[in-house]
């Protein structure tokens, strides 16, 4: 009887095995996923809006127009809020903030998570013991409440919010990267590099991280979406940065006009849905392309 075979734990999201990728196969898998290209198209549209914000938006999002709480119509396609600010302009400019916030938060998470996870998984031993304890503990802490407490207590400027979000969501990436590093460490080409006398830092940089990064990339894409939602949640509680126009903040401010001024919350909300969905779709496309087994089975 084998006593140890049952030790494997199947958990969704755990990579079975690090993946070798050829760009072409990868792209084919990505396209096959259906969700991937749609997400990319959506994101492209969103990014275009962000880039062209000054052109698209009729006015500065902070600027007051004469129409207070005007319903959608000519001049104000999405209407105006109770201060007379143009919702359409806000949505357009908010794209920049949401993208910035999402990308920066997720990037922080990706960098921290990748480094911690790769070191933990590759080094093993007590280093892994300590780091993975840390990862586990942070994974178990309810993040939103933590972010909430920190932001509420310490302040809510955008850079701060981005950093706090980034620094609370990295453990998921670290866990992925650690699992990757653990499996990559046993991979023949890594063993071969060790046997050839390669230095550990170089092995991490050249073999472990480049190979193991894909699930982290996919997850980071999802985290962009998560960060945007988190910011929206914070803003909804009045904890957004008052100096920038973000969608969450627009909903929060527009909420006072409900139910009569439904457009003040409807459109920013839809913008969040579209953007978040773009990242989810891309993330799923990446996962699909990265997971050959699932791909073969049409998942």
């Amino acid at each position, binding site marked *: 009887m084998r*006593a*140890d*075979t*049952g*030790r*494997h*734990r*199947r*958990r*969704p999201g755990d990579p079975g095995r690090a993946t070798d990728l050829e760009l072409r196969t990868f792209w084919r898998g990505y396209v096959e996923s*259906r*969700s991937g290209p749609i997400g990319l198209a959506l994101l492209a549209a969103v990014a275009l809006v962000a880039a062209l914000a000054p052109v698209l938006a009729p006015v500065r999002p902070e600027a007051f127009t004469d129409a207070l709480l005007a319903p959608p119509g000519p001049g104000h396609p999405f209407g105006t809020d109770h201060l007379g600010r143009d919702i359409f302009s806000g949505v357009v400019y908010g794209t920049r903030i949401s993208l910035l916030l999402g990308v920066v938060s997720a990037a922080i998470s990706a960098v921290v998570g990748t480094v911690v996870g790769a070191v933990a998984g590759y080094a093993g031993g007590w280093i892994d013991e300590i780091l993975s*304890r840390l990862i*586990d*503990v*942070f994974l*178990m*802490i*309810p*993040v*939103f*409440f*933590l972010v*909430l*407490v*920190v932001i*509420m*207590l*310490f302040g809510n400027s955008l850079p701060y919010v981005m950093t706090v979000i980034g620094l609370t969501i990295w453990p998921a990436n670290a866990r992925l990267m650690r699992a990757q590093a653990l499996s990559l460490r046993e991979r023949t080409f890594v063993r071969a590099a060790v046997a050839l006398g390669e230095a550990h830092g170089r092995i991490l940089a050249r073999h472990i991280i480049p190979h193991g990064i894909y699930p982290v990339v996919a997850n980071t894409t999802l985290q962009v*979406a998560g960060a945007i*939602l988190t910011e*929206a*949640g914070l803003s*909804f*509680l009045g904890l957004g940065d008052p100096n920038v126009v973000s969608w*969450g903040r627009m*909903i929060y401010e527009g*909420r006072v006009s*409900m*139910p009569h001024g*439904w457009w003040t*919350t*409807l459109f920013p*909300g839809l913008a*969040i*849905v*579209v953007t*978040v*969905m773009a990242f*989810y*779709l891309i993330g799923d496309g990446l996962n699909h392309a990265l997971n050959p*087994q*699932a791909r*073969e*089975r*049409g*998942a």
Partner: protein
Amino acid sequence: MWTTLGYLARRCGALLLTLAVVVVLNFVLVRAAPGDPVRILAGMDQPSPEMVEALTRRYGLDQPLAVQFWAYVRSLLQGDLGRSITFERPVSQLIAQTVGPTLLLTLTATLLAFALGVALGTVSGTRPRSRLDALLSLAAYLLYAMPPFWLGMMGMLVFASWLGWLPTSGMYDVRSPQTGLAHWLDVAHHLVLPAATLALVQMPVFYRVTRASVVQVLGDDFVTTLRAAGLRPGTIFRRYVLKNALLPSVTMLGLQLGYVLAGAALVEVVFSWPGMGRLTLNAIYRRDFPLVMGIYLVVSAAVAVGALITDLVYGWLDPRIRYG
């Protein structure tokens, strides 16, 4: 048996470690934050040393931090979460009063989400890449991308404001409180919108996991064996695939808890649901240290225990898992 116990012991150790980190983190964060509760209680009256002092002494805030921390830990070990500064009541009592509605909301929503997600996930997973699958997937993406509070607001707009079918807030009608069955029907009526909101934003998680695992299990070798043995696809699915495919969804059930509680807090705000979410925001706002720490501890413990229970249930469902 021993290995299971050993596993349990280790998991509990990890749980305690998590809670220890939570306690320290909490303590440090809350104390490091600008502003202190006495000032809020006393108002902005800078030169009133007598009152500030009296309050400070009353809540032990004059002690060195280390002493305060030790006192906190000691009382925690005795099962005492402390006394709320703002409410002048034991924290445990405040939590106990709000935990019920929160549990009612989150459990209802989660079970709904689970049932719905698994059912739809199965539908999709058995016909991957079909039109129905595409439609369901799209719906899942859409819901997944929705901020729960926004969905709640839109739900309230449509069903409470425009259609007037459902109440906007609260847990029951305070004007004419009911008893017995009528009371629970009333609660259920109030529960519809918040629970549906929370269920809908969670559903995609279960949907996606179920769909993926159904697709995966359908491709497993043992399915080929059973097909080769001449079993009907329906039989294979019901007797074999489903059990295999449900396991990951069950795992998600526990892992979701943190997310659900966060979503619940926001939804509670939208619908004035008398739960812990609102209590939390209140406590943070008032710098009610004992209350903030107590809630956070309880929430963290709940999440950790949820994960532990999930693991155990998973181990019970999946014979492969031996806690060695």
